[in-house]
């Protein structure tokens, strides 16, 4: 299965600033997915990132707040913009392992906004 390196693993940020999270995969993948996991909650899909096209955002998430880049088939970034304490969450990237498989997830980024 693919190996995903996600950085940073954690960060504490001031409100109003932005943080960019990086996700590097050791193999080429068509789709990459970004999830948010709020404290004590399940995972919520933010957006799907395909290489060469704009990301597709789920209801409740917008590009201005969570811009995503996908410059090639092994890399993606998620930026959390103009942060507020409500953005404090774990952010995870993931890739599909084929139609019959689950996802492989990165180790997550724990973001705390103060």
């Amino acid at each position, binding site marked *: 299965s693919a190996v995903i390196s996600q950085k940073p693993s954690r960060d504490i940020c001031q409100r109003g600033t932005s943080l960019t999270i990086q996700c590097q995969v050791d193999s080429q993948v068509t789709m990459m997915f970004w999830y948010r996991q709020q404290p004590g909650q*399940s*995972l919520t*899909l933010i957006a799907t990132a395909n290489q060469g096209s704009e990301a597709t955002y789920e209801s409740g998430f917008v590009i201005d707040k969570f811009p995503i880049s996908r410059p090639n088939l092994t890399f993606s970034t998620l930026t959390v913009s103009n942060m507020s304490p409500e953005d404090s969450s774990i952010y995870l990237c993931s890739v599909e392992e084929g139609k*019959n498989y*689950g996802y492989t997830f*990165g*180790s997550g980024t*724990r973001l705390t906004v103060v």
Partner: protein
Amino acid sequence: AQTVTQSQPEMSVQEAETVTLSCTYDTSESDYYLFWYKQPPSRQMILVIRQEAYKQQNATENRFSVNFQKAAKSFSLKISDSQLGDAAMYFCAYRIPHNFNKFYFGSGTKLNVKP
């Protein structure tokens, strides 16, 4: 609506004992894939086991097995011979073929393993 329900927010099991985590889901689809994921304190989501809905035989992976009841839309996870390393959050999830981008996750069950 596509939903996944895990009715047990937290469970405890004695080391070496067996525990079953419950999961029910709601879908109108006949073809889908079911998964159990484990999330230890390290935050890494780890695939534990998966089940194709078209297969009647319950999936097993070493100490982990499922009881898949398609008519009842139930997908429980049984952990045998529990080990301290099994302590984690467990999430039930499924995907449907025509919307393969999306995983539907349950709210999770925190499993504590007592030595």
